[in-house]
């Protein structure tokens, strides 16, 4: 087990280098003259040269990349925004909790819907309830999140005035200059985004859970459990779900990792300044350090989550433990 963890950690390092290298190449090498962008519109050619030197842009590419890695790993410094000179790390870390709030809240909602509905559908296949659920799934997958978000925002927020149209409130209380804060405001502002976000994922997961549970119900060991005299609820929870949820757990880990990397569409629709929103706007402004910062952060998240999910799988499935 320890050897497995060490191997995975080494692999995570390899992944990290590959991702950061690819990202670095995309954002610093390919665009034309990043030094000019950094120096700003009003800069003279001499200023641009100074900036280029400062940013190591006159060095060979490999040296630039090593410097970037060195800054990132040893000093945790992702550079400074071209637009407002703010430390990228700070910007990213301010945006991250917002995305985390959105995603994790949505996860709770979509799992709370998907598990019961998925299990029910699998236990009563082709029943009326199952057919309704599958229609719901089709709708959920087909509806575009942006459209749904806009409609929800318009109807629930603007027309019916039940929920805020957009905006984020910090959980810990109003920051100076903010108009709202505290847990209640936080919840109130996120409930509609959560639900819209959850729709698509709930649809996928209902279908997935229905499928894995249906398969597991046919397994021999489920028949053994019934033959032992186990009551049906025990058979479902201890024997069926305990096995059927294994692939769901893996998928969930990956989906959460990807979503945390930047739920761009819904953050834009609901005006939540999370990672996706920040990255999107940085692109509009050609503010590459920010973009790169978000990408690096998101990549690290995905790599870390991947590792956690793999380890978790080894914990819950004893057949993998000794791999």
């Amino acid at each position: 087990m320890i050897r497995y963890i060490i191997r995975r950690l080494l692999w995570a390092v390899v992944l990290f280098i590959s991702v950061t290298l690819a990202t670095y190449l995309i954002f610093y090498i390919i665009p034309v003259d990043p030094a000019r962008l950094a120096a700003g519109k009003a800069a003279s050619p001499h200023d641009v040269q100074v900036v280029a030197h400062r940013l190591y842009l006159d060095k060979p590419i490999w040296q630039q990349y090593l410097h970037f890695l060195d800054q990132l790993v040893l000093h945790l410094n992702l550079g400074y925004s071209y637009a407002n000179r703010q430390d990228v790390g700070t910007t990213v870390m301010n945006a991250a909790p917002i995305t985390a709030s959105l995603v994790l809240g949505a996860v709770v909602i979509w799992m709370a819907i998907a598990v019961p509905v998925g299990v029910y559908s699998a236990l009563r296949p082709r029943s009326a309830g199952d057919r309704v659920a599958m229609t719901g799934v089709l709708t959920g997958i087909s509806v575009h999140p942006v459209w749904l978000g806009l409609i929800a925002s318009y109807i629930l927020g603007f027309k019916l005035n039940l929920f805020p149209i957009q905006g984020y409130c910090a959980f810990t209380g109003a920051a100076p200059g903010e108009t709202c804060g505290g847990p209640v405001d936080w919840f109130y502002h996120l409930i509609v985004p959560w639900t819209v976000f959850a729709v698509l994922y709930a649809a996928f997961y209902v279908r997935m859970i229905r499928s894995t549970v249906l398969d597991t119900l046919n397994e021999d060991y489920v028949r053994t459990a019934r033959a032992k005299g186990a009551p049906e609820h025990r058979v479902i929870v201890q024997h069926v779900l305990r096995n059927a949820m294994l692939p769901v757990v893996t998928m969930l880990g990956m989906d959460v990792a990807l979503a945390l990397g930047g739920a761009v569409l819904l953050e834009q629709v609901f005006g939540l300044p999370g990672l996706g929103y920040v990255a999107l706007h940085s692109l509009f402004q050609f503010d590459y350090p920010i973009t790169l910062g978000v990408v690096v952060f998101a990549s690290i998240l995905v790599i870390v989550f991947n590792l956690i999910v793999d380890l978790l799988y080894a914990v819950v499935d004893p057949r993998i433990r000794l791999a």
Partner: protein
Amino acid sequence: MPLLDVRDLKTSFKTDDGVVQAVDGLSFSVEKGKTLAIVGESGCGKSVTCLSVMGLNPRQNTVTSGSAVFKDRDLLTLPQDEMRKVRGNEISMIFQDPMTSLNPVHTIGRQLIEAVQLHENVPKRAARSRALEMVKAVGIPRADTRLDDYPHQFSGGMRQRVMIAMSLINNPYLLIADEPTTALDVTTQAQILNLMNELQRDFGSAIILITHDLGVVAETADEVLVMYAAKAIEQGDYSSIFYRPRHPYTWGLLNSLPRLAQGAELKPIPGSPPSLLRPPPGCRFHLRCAFAFDRCRTEVPPLLPSPDRSDHLDACHLDEPAKQLGAEEVVDRMKVASV
């Protein structure tokens, strides 16, 4: 007073292609401490018979009729929660494929303990020591550490032993074993059968053994029930069936046993079993029977006792002399060929 008395058991399944009559009027009984072997080809209804008795058929689209009286109660009419108290406790069942019959994410200790605690309110420690006893009794070495192992850490034969331990842990009156050795190699098969015989002596349970292998029947059975296409076509005492068989299908089964003698060819029964969706008219075996005549094609032969032994029944239109002759030929052939 038999332990289990089944009368006119019928089970049918509604499928998209029509109704399949999987069991068509079976009647048999099992005595305390004895072994009944139910023999037949794949698909003849042997497993469904036992699943019906245990109430383990899928509830939707299944119709079961008849009676299965076990200790003064008809299992087929028992409410679900009563039946659950019987399963795993008074009547246990083990299945064919040990590789997939155990939950892969629970230790075998936990699954054995579950079997105990489902039926008795005992603390975990007591249940665990019962589990340990049983695991030792079925011959698994280093039982104490093995209890905390997972099913994938056991071989097929070991897993089947665990299944046997699990089925006997509550000392049931009746153990139903559905082809327990079919998925195992021959040496392991012999070990498992010996184990079952031993445990039957020690625990005094009755056994219903489902198999398609007459060799297995020869080793274990007191009574035999031969099924074909959802019906019973011969049943009786083991020696009666083996030394004075009366039905052409039974003759065919006995003839098809591989011979160790040199030059002996395999003599299978030609053809294959009929579809249970649209069974043939008359005797269901007539299309493959070397002795079929006109009556066989139109009239279903009733299951009737033999003139010598009233407990030996067969469903065949052949007259007495023909049956005697057929029996003699088969038995002679078996004697000649035996080493």
